[in-house]
């Protein structure tokens, strides 16, 4: 057991994976200097510049080369720096990495871990703040993970690197400094949710940094005597429908909250799935609390308009309960 930041936990996962398997390597811009958020600090010293590969500013080539290198028997960890820049490499991820195994009839797998730091981080504005996890859930062939805690960042990143198919691994930029206990050799199964806080009165589903907002809301609600159950999905594809369904069967109430834009966001998938398959469990209308469909501003109060606050969650739960 160690107390680690979310950043350090990810770095430890990579270091351990690289020690155990010489075919694991990392590629991305400025990795030799530790990466833009320090999440690779010290790794070049241990593993050398061939395996901690500092690349040109060539997102298409970073992703595309990783696809080829995966086909050639290595396990690349791709650093996209900001999830927003991964939009320069969508063909490579969606048309190539995600489809190669299938199109070629299973002749090759493409073991790829694509790290995409996402989310709002004070005043980074419209091109450095997006949360586009929903996009990747829509693409057959991809696994999508969005951890909320240091331990999950450690355990799920290790699981992602071990996985034989492309994984979009979305760390939240606002969590890098968050500290938490990380059990030695902690493991996590991709597709299993974590009950962040148990409760029988209302189910709140979330993932990534928004889990912590939901937890704040749950704490406030507890003061009122309302026991919210907060479910941290941890991975969005596959996602743990069973855990959510079981909770809603108990509470009769479902709120999904996420940082991404609500329209076309993954909250719609969760709500629609529960409404379709567990309709009878819903004693109240389900609810999404997510960002309005506007770009993200630079000025703080404008930026805050796309944030869902604990207060809003509390108010919504009170309305349902």
């Amino acid at each position, binding site marked *: 057991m160690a107390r680690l930041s979310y950043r350090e936990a990810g770095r430890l996962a990579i270091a351990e994976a690289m020690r155990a398997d010489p*075919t694991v*390597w990392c590629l991305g811009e400025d990795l030799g200097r530790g990466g833009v958020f320090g999440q690779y600090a010290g790794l070049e010293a241990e593993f050398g510049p*061939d*395996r901690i*590969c500092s*690349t*040109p500013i*060539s997102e*298409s*080539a970073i*992703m*595309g*080369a*990783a*696809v*080829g*290198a*995966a*086909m*050639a*028997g*290595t396990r*690349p960890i791709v650093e996209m720096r900001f999830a927003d820049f991964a939009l320069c490499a969508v*063909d*490579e991820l969606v*048309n*190539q990495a995600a489809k*190669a*195994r*299938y*199109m*070629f*009839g*299973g*002749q*090759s797998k493409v073991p790829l871990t694509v790290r995409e730091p996402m989310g709002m981080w004070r005043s980074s504005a419209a091109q450095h703040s997006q949360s586009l996890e929903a996009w990747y859930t829509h693409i*057959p*062939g*991809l*696994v999508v993970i969005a951890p909320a805690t240091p331990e999950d960042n450690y355990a799920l990143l290790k699981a992602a690197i071990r*996985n*034989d*198919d492309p994984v979009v691994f979305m760390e939240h930029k606002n969590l890098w400094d968050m500290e938490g206990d990380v059990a030695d050799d902690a493991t996590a199964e*991709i*597709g299993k949710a974590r009950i962040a806080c148990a409760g029988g009165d209302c189910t709140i589903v979330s993932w990534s940094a928004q889990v912590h907002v939901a937890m704040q809301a749950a704490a406030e609600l507890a003061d009122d005597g309302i026991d919210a159950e907060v479910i941290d999905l941890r991975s969005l*594809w*596959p996602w743990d429908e069973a855990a959510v369904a079981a909770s809603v069967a108990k509470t009769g109430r479902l709120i999904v909250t996420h940082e991404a834009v609500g329209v076309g966001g993954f909250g719609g998938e969760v709500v629609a799935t529960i409404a379709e398959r567990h309709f009878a469990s819903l004693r109240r209308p389900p609810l999404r609390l997510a960002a309005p469909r506007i770009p993200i501003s630079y000025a703080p109060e404008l930026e805050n308009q796309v944030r869902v606050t604990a207060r809003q969650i509390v108010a919504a739960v009170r309305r349902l309960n």
Partner: protein
Amino acid sequence: MLRIRAFETAAIRAADEKLVLGAIHPSVGQEAVAAGVCAPLRRDDLLLSTHRGHGHTLAKGADAAAMMRELFGRDGGNCGGKGGSMHIADFSVGMLGANGVVGANINIAAGAAHGVKLRGGDQVVVCIFGDGAMNRGPFLEGLNWAASFKLPVLFVCEDNGWAATTSTRAVTGGPGPAARAEALGIATAAVDGNDVLAVEEAAQALVESLRSGGGPRLLHARTYRLLGHTSVDKAAYRPAGQAEARWADDPIRRATDLLLGAGVAQNVLDADAAAATAEMTAAFEDAKAAPWPPVSAAYDDVQDIGAVAAPAGL
């Protein structure tokens, strides 16, 4: 070359008869590039190809019958009928795939070479792409990547003058692919892509320099697409007489003349051609008779974690 020509002749017939299902892009007239470039390659060398990839795939050693089955969408196709012509691949002979996205194979090839280098292998990677692909970003990013990391990859620009219905020259600034590669730090060679011996010789030298760690190279092979962009394209947009004139330069005809000149008997050549035709006719008949893939295969090989189940009863 004869086998490639015979394969595509059979495939075009099959497309006309609606036995081939999706679009196919014949490489008739370009066979010398495929044959010459692949001649010096080992089986474990790697190859990345394009939408116009039948010839490259055959030349790398893939089984013609399995390829024909793939074009017919049948069981036993290289990709189990899931890919078709534009995604033909045979990893067992190092052929890592055609690609439906122009230029996408360039970065993948650079990465395959990166993987080879990291693993300490001595394979080379060959990446063939068209003249149209040199106007896509991956040309710059992939070649710069290969140059920066000194990777063992041979880029081959198979320059047939056309990008679908557009003359590539009309939308291409500067002198062409070789100048672009040189500006990215990659040494180049140019060759008459319809002269199979010249292509082979050039490729041989480049592959050797790659194998000895010389870093990436580009080969500019000038050729001509004798047919349309796809098998249904009549290519009426070409200047009158252009294609007709270029048939005189048909690489197979040139190779035949060469061999005849070198004293090979006509009947030996005829026998080769007949054997190729017979092989591909048999592949055609085999594919036509082959069963469809099991429908449940649609659910296979999506992904290990997070795969959806096939519906009950499939």
